């Protein structure tokens, strides 16, 4: 029913093989590229496609790649990001399990576009089985001549190594990831442009696995085709949406960018579980805000959500029903964020435990009226932190206060959680 581009080769139980991937046109984009396209051609096609980052920030991919100067030093690096520790998000795991070569081809094309020599496939430890799939398929790609010295007989040489992480959400932040790969304590580094001096002080681009997987499709079918896959003018391409929580068919689905939440919930995910009614949803992973049902018809793309004051994030939707205490859910989220803070800067390291403490006391029925303005103020301070982690952590708190203030206040009036 919905056009499947990234998930064209999806089947139950196992990833597509190299032969299956090639039968559907796989590695054609790479073959064409090394034979007749310039890095500039790739970047131009991406520009036409409107592809923007699928890792949460939504930055236009062509622009990031074009920041690497023509005469910048070598070696240059690509980081493929499958840290995927944003709660609610599991699309990259499903993608790697569906069509590993689509991701691999995308990484190789990224390498070609910035004239890189090497890529690191950065993956979290709970995805060890997926890391093994990638390693195995990288070897298959090498043996087929798509990777390694003189790819397909051209003068382009490029290889990919899997880099295993050892946990911690912050490692998914691109500048922290680069530190992690270098074997340094992974705090974000905002004082350098990675496209000038990233990994080992060399030009580096980091992209999300899903972003990279879109690239072969753009090169093979053209930028205009990709752009046209979206439902909206403001969107581009398809998107791997995750939906989880109190729905009938939770899962990861490839859908046109800009599809409204109502359609995802009702048509794709089979609606709410019996006995459940929609109370709120989080549109794009734990670092986006709660949204009440009145937003059900907003197009789920980056610009449309921005227009109503929300962030698209990773497109990982979490659905809450009438029996869920939003304060309780926020307590869970802020506990996670306080634990995952890298500890480098004070607003985040000190502020999040403070927010956590206030919310915990509210949930315990020990809250007071002035906790509400204090929470609002503290959540606002998160914008002063060093990296995007802390504003993300504040998003659900702000959403709770914006849309569910009455429910928070009920905890104060009743001196207990009204859901317990």
């Amino acid at each position: 029913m919905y056009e499947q581009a990234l998930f064209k080769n999806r089947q139950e139980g196992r990833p597509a093989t190299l032969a299956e991937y090639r039968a559907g046109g796989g590695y054609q984009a790479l073959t064409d590229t090394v034979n007749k396209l310039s890095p500039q051609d790739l970047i131009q096609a991406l520009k036409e496609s409107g592809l923007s980052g699928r890792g949460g920030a939504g930055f236009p991919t062509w622009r990031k790649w074009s920041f690497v100067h023509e005469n910048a030093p070598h070696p240059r690096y690509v980081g493929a990001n499958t840290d995927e520790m944003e709660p609610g998000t599991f699309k990259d795991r499903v993608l790697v399990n569906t069509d590993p070569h689509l991701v691999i081809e995308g990484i190789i094309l990224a390498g070609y576009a910035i004239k890189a020599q090497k890529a690191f496939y950065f993956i979290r430890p709970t995805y060890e089985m997926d890391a093994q799939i990638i390693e195995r398929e990288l070897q298959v790609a090498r043996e087929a001549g798509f990777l390694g010295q003189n790819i397909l007989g051209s003068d382009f040489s490029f290889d990919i190594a899997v880099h295993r992480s050892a946990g911690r959400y912050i490692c998914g932040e691109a500048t922290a990831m680069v530190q992690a790969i270098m074997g340094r304590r992974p705090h974000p580094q905002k004082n350098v442009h990675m496209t000038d001096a990233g990994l080992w002080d060399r030009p580096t681009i980091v992209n999300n696995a899903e972003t990279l997987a879109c690239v072969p499709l753009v090169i093979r079918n053209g930028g205009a085709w990709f752009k046209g896959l979206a439902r909206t003018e403001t969107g581009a391409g398809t998107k791997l949406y995750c939906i989880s929580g109190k729905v009938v068919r939770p899962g990861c689905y490839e859908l046109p960018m800009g599809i409204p939440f109502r359609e995802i919930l009702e048509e794709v995910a089979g609606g709410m579980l019996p006995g459940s009614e929609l109370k709120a949803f989080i549109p794009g992973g734990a670092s986006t805000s709660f949204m009440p049902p009145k937003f059900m018809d907003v197009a789920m793309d980056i610009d449309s959500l921005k227009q109503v004051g929300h962030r698209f994030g990773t497109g990982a939707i979490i659905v809450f029903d009438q029996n869920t205490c939003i304060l309780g859910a926020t307590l869970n989220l802020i506990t996670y964020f306080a634990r995952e803070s890298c500890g480098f800067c004070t607003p985040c390291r000190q502020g999040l435990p403070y927010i956590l403490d206030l919310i915990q006391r509210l949930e315990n029925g020990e809250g007071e009226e002035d906790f509400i303005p204090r929470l609002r103020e503290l959540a606002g301070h998160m914008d002063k932190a060093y990296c995007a982690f802390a504003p993300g952590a504040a998003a659900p708190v702000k959403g709770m206060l914006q849309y569910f203030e009455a429910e928070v206040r009920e905890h104060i009036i009743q001196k207990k959680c009204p859901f317990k």
Partner: protein
Amino acid sequence: MIPEPLREKLKSQINQAENPREQAVNVMYEIQRHYGYLTDEGLQEAAAMVGATPLELEELATFYDFIYREPVGRFVLHVCDGVVCWMFHEGSLFDYMCRKLGVCAGEVSADGMFTVLPTACIGYCDQAPAMVVNGRFFGHLTPALIDEILEQLKTETCDLVLCR
């Protein structure tokens, strides 16, 4: 001293990387797979092998949550405490496992088999509540299913993957 075969394995792993430091995490994983955790002695030797000071490696070991600086059970039950799993069990499964095994978070069960740890969303939200053990996922957890899984793990002689 770490045993010679392990040392050789580590050396060849390090040699594959352009920069030895890139292998810091892998080397720590190997040592903890061998000893069950990252021993002080192992840390010292690993640091020398990747060209870091022990303190620099300790900076990493203490940062990551899949590096264990104390002994853990043969299997670590990484139980998701993410928001979707929370929605379905509100923490009770974690408590159930601790009660059943007679441990608190991080302790080793009397038979040496299990440690229970809370873990950030493990990317199986569509099958919440979920946990990951020795690289394997278990979803739609219930107390009965947990009993079954624990029995199965006890009798299994499966190889340990990277992170228990």
